[in-house]
């Protein structure tokens, strides 16, 4: 289809008819300033193709001029070689008209005309040419126009040729929609059973019925078990109440009682027999005892008699022995006493002899001691005297001290004399001794020191005083002399010589004392008092006795006397022992005789009242024998009774059991009746609930519900399978479906962006992203200019596809390139021009300057 002429009447500002004529095959440009009606033309074109004649909607109303009048649009199109005029007029009464003429005659009108228009806008496969391709002023958002998208879809569909078949198209969508909506009845979006949907309902139903069934099964089982129990109890009760059984129990009890009584009686008679036997046994034993006792008494008495006699003889013998022993003892006592006397006499003699001997010794000793004491006392006195002397003498140290002082005096004196002025007199002849010094003649020629000056009396001359010159330093001899004098005085001596004598005397006295002491020491080492003590201890002097034997003789006598005494003592001791023993023997024999006599008396006791023991013994023997026979008989009787005795204990047990059986039966009957009442009530209640009937019903319904659920699950599975198959098929088909678009688009894109690639969304057929230099940029973040250019290119490629199918669709661009700068526009126009070789393109623009030199067919509104 190609546009040739557009005519408007009563469209907005164009009240009077205007026309755009001479629209060429290729690129057409209508350049006019804004507000010159370009958009009006565009809208009118859109309306004539897409608005039904009886429409009066917003879009149509907007075409109406202010002045009123019915908007009318007419277009001349060339289609498959023919020229058609479409003229459409709308009015506010919704009854506009449409006419289509060709070759000067009316071709279609009214509804048929509308159908024809719709048909030519449809995809070729559906029988008509493709629709128009619109690009409105500044539209970059490709998705906002449903009609445009539909057109694109149809275009694409037509272009691809097999696309409808390839993707399934509408039928595919319809199948998919139905499949989805049917699945939605069962499943949620997430694929779970949907609440309120049949799947979930049946699942719930099955679960509910299952639960109910289980509950009922439990109830039913309970009822059944109670019925079983009741039946068992009833049977048991019937058995218990059976008269035969009752009779049996009673008979058994009676028999047990009779048996027990009989056994009791038998037990009593056995008891008596046992008692009798016992009595007889005791009697027999007693008889035996009596016999034995008698035997024993007879033996005893004869033995006791014998013993008595023997004891008496023995006693006599003992008495005789004692009297002998007494005589012997008395004699030996006398001997002993004599021996003792003799020892005493001899002993006295010996003592006296020894006394005399020691008295003599003592006298000698005394003499000696007295001498020693006298000597010792003399020595003592001497020592004492010497000691007193020694104490009076000057001790050695004091003498030494005095010597030292004396020495010092002399040394000093000598030194002064040496140092001092000395005078030496040489007498004129004859003048000897005329000079006296200090009163004494001055010796001739002798050097006389005068340390203290001197007074020289010179006879006849006078006195010459010589004064000492310098007094020498240090101690003066006078001072030393004074010291000495003081010391001498202290020591109680008059001069040093006396001191020496005194010391000498002291030394001698000391020596003497020591000698005396030593002598005394040796004479009386322990002191004189010791000697005196010794003397005092010496025995008294006794008077001498005459006729005393010698000590030695006396000792011999004494020895002899002692031996005799010892022998006498032994003899006496032996006699005394014999006496004691004899005494004891007498006592023993007496005792034995007494005990024998007692025994004899006791042995005689049993025989009191028995005259003839032997006769008695015979009697007793007979009695024993008789009783033994009786005992044997009683034992036999008891044994016989025991052998035939029934088991009393067993009888008692049997009786008790028979009793308890009867009692148990009664008790059991009561229990059962009680249980039965409970069960009757319970069963009565449950039976009224028709449990089994409900259960049978529920089970049937459960089975049916399971079958339904299985059917539904199968249905869901089938739908899911179908959905999956459809989705898989469509996805793979779509990939193939986008291909032709890309084939057209790629060369155009290369024209603008040599390296770029465009990704197209197969669902909406919209550009999704541009890939430049390996970077993917989402379409909506691209610059407006770029978006605009891509949108245009996509449309152009659709148009090219359409053209290739043999149909052409006009591409109408209404100020479509507003964001694109002038340089790009030129580029764009190159593209358009290139495309326009196959396509009819109508460009409306207000950018006069930019479009002026782009070439193409210039259109005008006239």
């Amino acid at each position, binding site marked *: 289809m190609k546009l040739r002429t557009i005519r408007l009447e009563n469209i907005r500002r164009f009240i009077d008819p205007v026309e755009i004529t001479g629209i060429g095959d290729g690129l057409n440009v209508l350049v006019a300033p804004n507000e010159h009606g370009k958009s009006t033309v565009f809208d009118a074109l859109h309306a004539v193709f897409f608005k039904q004649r009886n429409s009066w909607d917003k879009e149509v109303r907007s075409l109406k001029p202010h002045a009123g009048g019915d908007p009318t649009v007419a277009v001349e199109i060339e289609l498959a070689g023919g020229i058609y005029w479409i003229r459409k007029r709308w009015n506010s009464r919704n009854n506009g008209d449409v006419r289509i003429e060709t070759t000067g005659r009316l071709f279609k009108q009214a509804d048929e005309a509308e159908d024809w228009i719709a048909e030519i806008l449809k995809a070729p496969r559906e029988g008509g040419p493709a629709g128009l391709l619109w690009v409105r002023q500044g539209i970059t958002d490709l998705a906002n126009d449903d009609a445009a998208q539909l057109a694109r879809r149809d275009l694409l569909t037509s272009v691809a040729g097999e696309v409808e078949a390839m*993707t399934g198209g509408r039928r595919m969508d319809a199948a998919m929609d139905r499949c989805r909506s049917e699945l939605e009845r069962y499943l949620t979006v997430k694929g779970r059973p949907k609440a309120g949907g049949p799947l979930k309902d049946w699942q719930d139903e099955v679960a509910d019925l299952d639960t109910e069934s289980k509950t009922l099964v439990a109830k039913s089982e309970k009822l059944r078990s109670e019925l079983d129990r009741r039946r068992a109890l009833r049977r048991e009760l019937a058995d218990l109440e059976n008269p035969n059984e009752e009779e049996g129990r009673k008979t058994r009890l009676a028999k047990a009682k009779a048996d027990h009584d009989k056994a009791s009686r038998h037990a009593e008679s056995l008891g008596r027999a046992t008692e009798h036997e016992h009595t007889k046994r005791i009697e027999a034993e007693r008889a035996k005892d009596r016999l034995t006792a008698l035997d024993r008494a007879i033996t005893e008495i004869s033995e006791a008699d014998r013993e008595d006699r023997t004891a008496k003889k023995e006693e006599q013998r003992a008495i005789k022995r004692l009297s002998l022993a007494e005589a012997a003892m008395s004699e030996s006592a006398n001997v002993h006493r004599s021996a003792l006397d003799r020892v005493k006499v001899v002993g006295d003699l010996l003592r006296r002899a020894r006394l005399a001997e020691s008295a003599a010794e003592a006298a000698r000793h005394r003499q000696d001691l007295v001498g020693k004491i006298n000597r010792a006392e003399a020595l003592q006195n001497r020592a004492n005297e010497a000691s007193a002397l020694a104490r009076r003498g000057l001790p050695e140290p004091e003498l030494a001290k005095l010597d030292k002082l004396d020495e010092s005096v002399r040394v000093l004196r000598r030194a002064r004399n040496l140092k001092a002025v000395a005078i030496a007199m040489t007498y004129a002849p004859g003048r000897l001794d005329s000079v006296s010094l200090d009163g004494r003649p001055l010796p001739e020629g002798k050097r006389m020191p005068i340390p203290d000056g001197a007074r020289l009396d010179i006879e006849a001359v006078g006195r010459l005083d010589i004064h000492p010159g310098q007094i020498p330093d240090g101690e003066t001899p006078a001072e030393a002399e004074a010291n000495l004098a003081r010391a001498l005085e202290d020591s109680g001596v008059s001069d040093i010589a006396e001191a020496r004598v005194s010391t000498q005397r002291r030394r001698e006295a000391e020596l003497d004392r020591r000698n005396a002491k030593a002598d005394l020491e040796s004479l009386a080492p322990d002191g004189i008092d010791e000697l005196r003590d010794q003397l005092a201890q010496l025995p008294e002097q006794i008077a001498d006795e005459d006729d005393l034997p010698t000590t030695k003789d006396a000792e011999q006598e004494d020895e002899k006397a002692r031996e005799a005494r010892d022998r006498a003592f032994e003899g006496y001791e032996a006699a005394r022992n014999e006496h004691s023993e004899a005494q004891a023997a007498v006592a023993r024999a007496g005792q034995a005789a007494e005990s024998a006599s007692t025994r004899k008396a006791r042995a005689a006791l049993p025989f009191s009242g028995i005259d003839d023991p032997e006769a008695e013994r015979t009697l007793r023997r007979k009695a024993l024998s008789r009783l033994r026979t009786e005992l044997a008989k009683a034992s036999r009787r008891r044994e016989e009774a025991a052998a035939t005795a029934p088991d009393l204990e067993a009888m008692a047990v049997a009786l008790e059991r028979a009793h308890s059986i009867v009692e148990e039966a009664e008790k059991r009957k009561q229990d059962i009746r009680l249980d039965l009442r409970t069960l009757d009530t319970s069963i009565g209640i449950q039976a009224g609930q028709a449990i089994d009937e409900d259960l049978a019903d529920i089970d049937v*319904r459960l089975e049916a519900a399971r079958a339904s659920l299985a059917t539904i699950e199968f249905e869901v599975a089938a739908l899911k399978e179908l959905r999956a198959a459809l989705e898989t098929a469509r996805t793979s088909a779509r990939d193939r479906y986008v291909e032709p678009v890309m084939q057209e688009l790629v060369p155009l894109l290369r024209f603008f962006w040599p390296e770029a690639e465009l990704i197209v969304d197969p669902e909406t057929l919209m550009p999704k992203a541009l890939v430049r230099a390996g970077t993917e940029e989402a379409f909506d973040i691209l610059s407006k200019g770029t978006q605009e250019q891509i949108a245009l290119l996509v449309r152009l490629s659709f148009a090219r596809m359409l053209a290739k199918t043999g149909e052409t669709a006009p591409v109408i661009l209404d100020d479509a390139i507003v964001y694109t700068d002038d340089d790009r526009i030129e580029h764009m126009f190159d593209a358009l021009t290139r495309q326009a070789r196959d396509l009819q393109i109508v460009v409306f623009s207000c950018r006069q300057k930019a479009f002026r030199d782009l070439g193409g067919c210039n259109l005008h509104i006239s």
Partner: protein
Amino acid sequence: MAGFRFIHSSDLHLGRRFGNFPEGIRGRLVEARHAAIDSLSAAARNNGAGHVLIAGDLFDTETPSDRVWRQALAAMAAAEGIQWWIIPGNHDSSSAETLWDLARAQAPVNVHVCDVAEPVEIAPGAVLLPSPVPSRSPGRDATEWMVGCRTPEGALRIGLAHGGIVTFGSEDDGAETITPNRATDARLDYLALGDWHGFMRVGERTLYSGSPERDRFKHLGRGICLAVTLPGPGAEPEVTEIVTGRFDWQDISLELTPKHAAAEALENILPGKGAARRDTLVRIRASGWIRLPERMELARAAQKAEPEFGYLELTDAELKTECAPEDLDDIASGGALRMAAEALYKDAEDDAKGAEDRAVAVAALRRLYSYVREETQ
């Protein structure tokens, strides 16, 4: 009238609720079971029989609801002049003491519950030997006592028992206990058996009457009872089948081939006409091979016919779908839809997949087919 005449029936299963059927038919099925009592008394009256022998399973369970058993007794009481002789079956065995105690206590004079195995002279010269079932699964032959049971000389001996015959099978598997020659060795003139819900002649004197009202597709047609005439001791019984059932149960198998016009075949095979269909329950068991379009047609035809019937069920578990290339063409000659269809078809034919998965694939393919066809139409 010569001989002794009575009605032999069994297995009324009163109290069964048919929860596996749609609600619409459920109540009618329940009601029909109760109505069977009236049908039996009518059959007795019409055939000059004074006795109805119920060979067990009068009730479906051991504890039927009060409504069920009391209304049943009331219905029997209403049958004037007819004596009802009932033994407990395995479903309502005599261990259901409560049921039978109550039933006995409230039974009208013409209803006799025979829950003890002892001979009863039900009419002069006619002795009934009832064998009540003692428990749900007795596991022994309850009729054995009949052999040693003495009856007056010249009296008819009529056995009444419930259970499976050994080697013949029973309604509930594994419950066969009654020996096949019981009628002979117990010198019975007739052995009226219950348990089997359909009519079955075991021997000339041993018969199952079946249920007077069918209750499943196992036993087809309408329920019957037997009118039995015993001409005299030792003489062969004369047995007449009398239809008592209200509902006609039909289980029809429909063999299909790809060449068949399936919908037509179905229509041809549907039983009954007009109003009778209301009381007809049908199960069509389709089998064989069928093409996709026919399959759709078949389902539509069944859907169309269904409201005419008391119950109509089409089971196609045995029906396999054959898929021809033109069927796939009908979906799409190419493109995505075709791809989807072929993928499903491949799955459906894939022997490596399990039967269930293949069935799912077939179902999915069928669904796709109907989507596309419906869209087109």
